[in-house]
């Protein structure tokens, strides 16, 4: 058994800093080693985008940037023996693997790639429903029947164990679909340290490490509210690395000579990110207790994380479904001094009047005043009369596409038919885009089985 392993975070979301994963590999050295790199590509909305791509072209449906990244780092990861674990396979991990194989062949490199399948339940929803799985909305309790014919994607969140199996079979790259962000980090710890399935404290520790790594630089100085000016060299921000030990303790750090900051405070902020009840951080692998986490700032961008407790996993997988829920469009105009806010509010009144006159029907019309109070409405001390210029953002949402189109046609005319000193209308008419809503549900773990395939090319 290794005495420690180092897991680097390479990507916090699909569209994160492109150079980050490449630098994590490039800067790996004997003095700052990397054994694994995890990359998180999937957000709730991502699966529906990928599903749409796959419908148009069955060879797509995964994060294409991922293949570019892997192609770039391929010689280096073979040379340095670094393993990559990512959920960038989206709704088509096999196509992603084939693209990686094609890149490897071109470079004359032999590589073992594992895929985790079985999370995509889009084609078996009816079967699952017939089998007594209700897939009701776990937040509202609504029945899936209400939206069944509009479902775009449906995926089970798998945890670490299928990835562990792929690693056990010798995969150097593991491509999954909807595997939890935390599972990507936990898996190599289980694999290397031989943790058992019911060693809940250690499984929870690895899960907490995953939570710290899953948003990339958000634990190493990015979006840091305590003292952002203390963060060095944002331009070359270093993504976090977890140095994990067999007893479940780990240290969060980053490569030397990179920008950013790892401190008790940067790690604490990420620990609080997007959590609910801290005593119940539920994943497919365990229930981690965030009130048990201890932090010790060791200085020089090293924070020790220890003491973590956890409880047994539940009998359910979380399911993430997306469905079509009408259309939306938005557009902006900019008004300046004098009376910028008065004019912006008048523009809002005019636009609403014209849309009403045209017989438009919307579920929601929202007007926000960017630069005045769009984010902190009601909390800003700024007086409206003092506003020098304001971007007014109009948004509409509804089931009637014609109404959304009519909104698009009525925005630009405000420039010649409304209050003066207005600009900033660019990019043409706002077009209706599909609103994709999110349907979270639970599914008995026995209802689906992960499949792992490891192949070498």
């Amino acid at each position, binding site marked *: 058994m290794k005495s420690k392993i180092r897991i680097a975070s390479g990507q916090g979301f699909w569209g994160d800093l492109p150079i980050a994963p490449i630098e994590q590999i490039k800067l790996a050295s004997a003095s700052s080693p990397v054994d694994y790199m995890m990359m998180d590509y999937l957000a709730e909305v991502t699966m529906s985008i990928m599903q749409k791509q796959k419908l148009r072209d069955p060879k797509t449906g995964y994060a294409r940037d991922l293949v570019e990244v892997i192609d770039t780092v391929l010689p280096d990861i073979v040379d340095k023996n670094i393993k990559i674990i990512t959920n960038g396979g989206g709704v088509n991990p096999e196509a992603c693997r084939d693209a990686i194989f094609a890149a490897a062949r071109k470079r004359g490199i032999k590589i073992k790639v594992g895929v985790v399948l079985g999370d995509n339940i889009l084609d078996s929803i009816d079967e699952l429903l017939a089998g007594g799985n209700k897939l009701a909305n776990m937040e509202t309790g609504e029945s899936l029947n209400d939206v069944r014919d509009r479902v775009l994607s449906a995926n089970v969140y798998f945890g670490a164990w299928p990835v562990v199996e792929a690693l056990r079979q010798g995969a150097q790259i593991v491509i999954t679909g909807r595997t939890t962000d935390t599972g990507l980090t936990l898996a190599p710890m289980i694999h290397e340290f031989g943790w058992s399935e019911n060693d809940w404290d250690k499984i929870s520790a690895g899960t907490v490490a995953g939570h710290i790594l899953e948003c990339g630089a958000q634990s190493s100085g990015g979006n840091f509210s305590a003292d952002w000016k203390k963060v060095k060299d944002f331009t070359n921000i270093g993504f976090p690395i977890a140095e994990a030990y067999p007893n479940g303790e780990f240290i969060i750090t980053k490569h030397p000579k990179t920008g950013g900051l790892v401190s008790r405070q940067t790690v*604490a902020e990420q620990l609080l990110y*997007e*959590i609910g009840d801290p005593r119940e951080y539920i994943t497919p692998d365990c229930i981690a207790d965030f*009130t048990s986490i201890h932090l010790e700032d060791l200085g020089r961008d090293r924070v020790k994380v220890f003491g973590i407790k956890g409880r047994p996993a539940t009998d359910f997988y979380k399911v993430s479904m997306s469905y079509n829920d009408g259309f939306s469009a938005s557009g902006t105009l900019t008004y300046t001094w004098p009376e910028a806010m008065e004019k912006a509010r008048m523009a809002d009144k005019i636009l609403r009047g014209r849309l009403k006159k045209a017989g438009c029907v919307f579920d929601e019309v929202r007007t926000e005043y960017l630069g005045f109070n769009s984010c902190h409405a009601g909390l800003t001390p700024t007086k409206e009369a003092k506003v020098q210029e304001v971007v007014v953002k109009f*948004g509409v949402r509804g089931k009637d596409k014609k109404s959304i189109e009519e909104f698009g046609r009525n925005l630009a005319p405000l420039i010649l038919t409304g209050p003066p000193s207005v600009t900033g209308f660019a990019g043409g008419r706002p077009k209706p885009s599909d609103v994709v809503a999110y349907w979270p549900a639970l599914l008995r773990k026995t209802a689906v089985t992960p499949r792992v395939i490891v192949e070498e090319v």
Partner: protein
Amino acid sequence: MKVQLIDICHARSGDKGDAANVGLIAREEKFYPVIKQYVTRAAVKKHFKGICLGPVDRFELPNLWALNFLLHNTLGGGGTVSLKHDAQGKTLAAALLRMEIDVPAALMKKKKAK
């Protein structure tokens, strides 16, 4: 005495469906009892009047000197549906740091002298 949270705390926020989560962390351990006592559910609900349209949950993390708030019915339907400019509640951490609490001067003094 009035204390603005930004002087004794830092924070991070994000989305959980139509709820926003705001994690509020004391800058020093000695401030944790202060925020625990004064940044109550009711105070936060009142502070976010007009932004948070649902109930507020509060959870304590003394180990991280932190409180976690869930502001329900806050993001205009949630990430993918919302027309809000800040559909994911990313700036609500800063919004909470605007809050002022009225703390007995002795408490702050004593804590500072410690």
